């Protein structure tokens, strides 16, 4: 096993982790502050990708399309909060799950009607189609580095917003004790709407960033939402810091597991058995991690201080 492969795989893991963080941060915000289970977060991820894909063909530049698609996705999120989520806050979690699962079906079918079943491939500007040579053996696709940079920028911006702005203060206060926040005369409905829109924009951004690698396709969010739930459970529900660390952890474990597990297995079993068992175990790996965390720290690694 050579070091350059390890470095590349670590970067790949980091990229996956940051994308997961973008999805999980919105999920943990909404769950932590609004106490609302939003499965339809997955649909916002998908819609972000589709809107960005259509805009890429309309305006001719992927990055410009992302800038336009972000507020559109945020607006969609705000609409979901205003018309679907708000009437359901007083109900229990099962009702949230039912309603937002229904919403997934509605959005999937809507996407099928608008964009057709085949999905849309998103072209990148020529400059980002190539690879960056870090050293002779260390070559990584340029766009993967763009994802890492964008993910880190979003995470940094989010950190600054949560710790240094008035809105961030309210979000933290809301996560700790939202009744008290409302009692202090804060417009809680406006705060909830903003948080939901922010979460939607973050999920949409993740969808937009992955679209040039895979494509905008129906149901693409359903793959990522389960992993995102694993992330927020491992990180501690409602905790931004927890979501960030858990997302990177899960991203790295998943990628490194897929990369090196079969080699490790070959050390103590036949190559055939290793090739068959490694994919099975690497698919389970993140759930095993979640089970271990739940057993040792049921509140997650970084639970918010007061609930």
């Amino acid at each position: 096993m050579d070091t350059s492969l390890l470095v590349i795989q670590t970067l790949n893991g980091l990229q996956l982790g940051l994308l997961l963080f973008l999805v999980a941060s919105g999920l943990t915000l909404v769950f932590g502050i609004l106490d609302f289970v939003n499965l339809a977060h997955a649909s916002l991820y998908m819609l972000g990708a589709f809107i960005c894909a259509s805009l890429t063909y309309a305006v001719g530049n992927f990055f410009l399309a992302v800038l336009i698609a972000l507020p559109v996705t945020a607006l969609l999120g705000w609409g979901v909060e205003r018309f679907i989520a708000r009437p359901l806050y007083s109900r229990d979690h099962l009702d949230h799950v039912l309603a937002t699962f229904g919403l997934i079906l509605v959005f999937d079918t809507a996407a099928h009607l608008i964009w057709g079943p085949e999905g849309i491939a998103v072209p990148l500007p020529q400059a980002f189609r190539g690879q960056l040579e870090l050293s002779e053996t260390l070559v990584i696709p340029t766009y993967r580095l763009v994802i890492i940079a964008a993910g880190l920028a979003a995470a940094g911006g989010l950190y600054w917003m949560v710790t240094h702005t008035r809105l961030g203060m309210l979000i933290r206060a809301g996560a700790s004790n939202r009744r008290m926040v409302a009692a202090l005369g804060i417009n809680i409905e406006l705060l909830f709407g903003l948080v939901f829109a922010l979460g939607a924009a973050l999920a949409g951004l993740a969808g937009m960033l992955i679209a040039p690698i895979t494509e905008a396709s129906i149901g693409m969010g359903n793959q990522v939402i389960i992993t995102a739930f694993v992330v927020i459970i491992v990180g501690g529900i409602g905790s931004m810091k927890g979501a960030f660390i858990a997302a990177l952890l899960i991203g790295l474990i998943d990628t490194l597991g897929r990369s090196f597990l079969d080699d490790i297995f070959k050390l103590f079993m036949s190559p055939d058995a290793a090739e068959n068992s490694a994919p099975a175990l690497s698919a389970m790996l993140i759930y095993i991690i979640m089970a271990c965390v739940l057993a040792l720290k049921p509140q997650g690694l970084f639970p918010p201080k007061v609930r």
Partner: protein
Amino acid sequence: MKKLFTAAAIAGLTATGASAESVKIGFVTTLTTPAAVIGKDMENAVNLAVEHLGGKAGPLDIEVIFGDDQFGPEAGKQATDKLVKQDDVDFVAGYIWSHVLLASRKSVLDAGKILISANAGPSQMAGKLCDPNFFSTSWQNDQTPMAMGEVLNKQGVKSLYLMAPNYAAGKDMTAGVERTFTGEIVGKDLTKWGADAQLDFSAELAKAKASGADGLFVFYPGAAAGAFVKQYQQAGLKDELPLYSVFTIDGISLPKLQQAGFSDVLGSKVTQEWDPSLDNAANQKFVSDFKEKFGTYPSFYAAQSYDAIMLIASAVEAVDGNLEDKDALRAAVKAADFESVRGSFKFGTNNMPVQNFYLREVVEDADGNWTTQVAETVYTDHVDSFAAECSME
């Protein structure tokens, strides 16, 4: 679930139309999830076949009822059960996915219906699980990669890295290329598949590159194909690690790859039992009418689905619409007396087609659309490797 009363549409409002006898065909494919792009292509081909037949199979009207497998064996079996028990169809055809077909076969065969695979070709059903009532208008999974293995030997490729999804067909495909490829297999990755399939192949591509192999063999059908080819190009592996694929670069992925400008795919070679450029009357009619009606080249999925309907219609016509005599009907299917889009068509002892396999090259046609054309014939009248395991005579 969709119901399509093609017969009614075509027969129009003739006074006796309502009580006309019909042959019911259940067609199971994927109509939701991203894999619906394949199902749509098959559905189009089925409708085109019915239209070409004038809605009639011998004296009977053709009625096709579609079932959605939702890209998974559980839903696929449910859809099959519904077709067999509730709709009481005479034939069940379709099936893109090997694991769906394996899960559904018993429901059809136990009810004494005739099952026709229009795509999936799991090794088990060509061998030990072969059945007099099961036929295929596609291939056994191993055959296409075996043909690719022969091509690789001829081109002097010494070492190969394999990538495929982790399900029945993925395992058959890698086994197929390993059976004929005489060089060294330096690594193999089976990735997660199904409704939450893995579509980001960064880790696997990095491993494949580090392995120093002469070539990369992949099998990624449907929506995964576009994702794979894009990442392959983004990783800049074209010169270092040439791509050899089966069921990945086809009539479904090419229009999207062209739209997004992934020109590395031009000139790439794939093996297949059919091609839009095959020179026979049935194929020319099929390809030109399909293009006119749906705007794209048909994929091999479409071609096999078209053949499945033509096969059923020929059998129903041969028995003059008498669907009660199962032995005669089965013999009529086995005779395969129809104009296949791949030219001559015949079944082997295990009811899998005995057919040619071609090496196809991705080219740009006269109108500027990306498609494939036959470069050479790899196998002539190839019999799959599992026919010997089948106990049927």
